[in-house]
């Protein structure tokens, strides 16, 4: 696999707390990747490690074949939009664009200016007086106008209203279409991920719980419901991700590359939301099992 982000046992420690621990993953190039996971899974840390804003305490992180943040050339290859979409409050929109032009060798000033005009932003307006949505658009413009091979976005839409969120993601999709950049977007909002991403990575407690093409994942997972039975009785090709039982009925979320042929089941497709939730709770249970000291006594 041609990986754009590759980590090997990467960890980041703050004092005694590990924000990311023993994380090994490979994210393929040329995709729009959605990164989801519960709070504290290490998504922000992973993205900041990839952007070169953080250095790993242990292990290695390789992005587009280089060490993140190590050289100007490496920095030029990666665009980053932070969670808070912070901009220089006292500088104007136009001054931000000039900053981008000065600091980036591949800066596309024409496109940046056109994008700002399309957004209806006044270049003379100070960034401090922009709305949250406008500021997010400005930081996105900054991140993509440097013509990076990879754009990293750390929950940039979390604080935006639905309309601003849609406009933001629309801009992002236009850029992807125009420039062919790869994207890694972290978000809690599965609907957003579903709209823009073609590859999904579910991160739980620094571990990859699920990774794959969104279309493949949806095609290979099914929800089965039928008379109550034990999950061990399912054929070997069907991996149970989630199981729930009532007195008479069982419901399974299974992974199976083949078709489900058992006529006892009612087979329904799964939504991405179901899929993510199922894998997140399964991975969390596994983490709890790894640490018996923290197990909740029921």
């Amino acid at each position, binding site marked *: 696999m041609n990986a754009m982000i590759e980590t090997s046992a990467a960890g980041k420690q703050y004092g005694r707390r590990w924000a990311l621990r023993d994380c090994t993953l490979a994210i393929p190039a040329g995709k729009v990747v959605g990164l989801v996971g519960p709070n504290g899974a290490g998504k922000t840390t992973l993205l*900041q490690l990839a*952007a*070169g804003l953080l250095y790993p305490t242990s292990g290695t992180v390789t992005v587009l074949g280089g060490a993140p943040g*190590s050289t100007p050339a490496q*920095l030029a290859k990666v665009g980053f939009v932070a969670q808070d979409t912070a901009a220089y409050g006292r*500088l104007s929109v136009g001054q931000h664009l000039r900053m981008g032009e000065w600091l980036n060798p*591949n800066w596309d000033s024409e496109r940046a200016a056109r994008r700002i005009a399309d957004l209806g932003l006044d270049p003379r307006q100070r960034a401090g007086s922009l709305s949250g949505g406008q500021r997010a658009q400005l930081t996105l413009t900054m*991140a993509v106008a440097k013509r990076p091979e990879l754009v990293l976005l750390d929950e940039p839409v979390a604080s935006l209203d639905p309309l601003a969120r849609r406009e933001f993601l629309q801009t992002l999709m236009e850029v992807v279409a125009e420039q062919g950049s790869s994207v890694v977007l972290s978000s809690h909002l599965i609907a957003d991920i579903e709209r823009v991403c073609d590859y999904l990575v579910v991160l739980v407690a620094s571990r990859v719980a699920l990774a794959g093409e969104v279309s493949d994942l949806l095609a290979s997972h099914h929800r089965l419901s039928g008379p109550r039975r034990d999950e061990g009785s399912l054929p070997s090709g069907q991996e149970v991700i989630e199981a729930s039982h009532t007195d008479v009925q069982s419901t399974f979320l299974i992974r199976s590359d083949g078709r489900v042929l058992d006529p006892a089941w009612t087979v329904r497709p799964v939504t991405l939301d179901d899929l993510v939730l199922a894998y997140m709770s399964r991975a969390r249970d596994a983490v709890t099992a790894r640490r018996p000291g923290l197990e909740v006594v029921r």
Partner: protein
Amino acid sequence: MIRFAWLQARTQTAIAAAALAAVAVFALVTGPRLLHLYHVDVATCQGSACASATTAFLASYRWLQVLAPQLLLVLPVLFGMFWGAPLVARELETGTFRMAWTQSVTRKRWLAVKLGVGALTSMAVAGLLSLILTWWFSPIDRVQLNPLDPSMFGVRGIAPVGYAAFAFMLGVTAGILLRRTVPAMAVTLVAFTAARLAVTYYVRPYLMSSQRAIAPLIMATGNGGPTPTPGAPTVKPGDWVLSAQTINGSGQVIGQYGGVGASGNIAFSMSSGNVSLHGVGPCPNTFPAAALDGARSASGPSASFNAAAQECITRLGLRNIVTYQPLSHYWPLQAYETLIFLALAVALAAFCFWRVNRTLT
């Protein structure tokens, strides 16, 4: 990156340049007149007229004389608090460092340019203000001749350039360590003041080997009775007296500040015709009756008492040992002091690079 650093620093640089221009205008308007007054009234005065001419001259532009050095005194710490402390701390507080550090410029270069622009601007402004003040004050300083005095040393010459560089870097360092602007400003103020005082009183006196003069203890006489005149006449005007100890005939130190005891007093006590020097012992000479009679008169001790007291001191073998930095050490001391603060600034800068590059965030 230099253009961007200038873009961020342009407001503060404009304010500093405007303030500097205002001071320069004041100096250019008043300076030549001050110089003229000096040449007309002081440099050519004759005999007894000199004292009053000098007093009158020193009273001219009194408010400028008081205010201008204060400005130069606080300027470096203002650079540290308002330029240095927010330089990185503000970026960390507002989150803009993530935008700055993900442009195609390495963090090392980003910091190098920001530190370079800030430190050089601070040093240039402080240096120019010091140049203006040193020029404006030159006739006054020629009369007062006290450039080594701790209150004067730091507001003339080249030392303010070193202070500015150090204060700026101190602010940056505090901002990087504390990650918040306002606490970093407070720390900068306290740490800079402490460093300046420490260098003034514990380092500067020992930067060059001080000179030492031993002279007989000579009393000045006046209405207040006998008072010691430390080191006279070996120590010349403009020399920086570091200590004036008194030793007795066998060479032991018996007092400070040119007198006897820790507070340097000279006191005689009389009982039944015998006079003794307080803290030393009985006078070897006998005081004439006339001298004793006049010792407690309302107009102060009589001349004969003073003469007998001086003879007592001389025969007891009391002498002054004065250690001092001579006036000729002024420019070497200025250079050393500047280099010390520049070296401290460089050390702080190295720490900032290490911290920003490896451990920050």
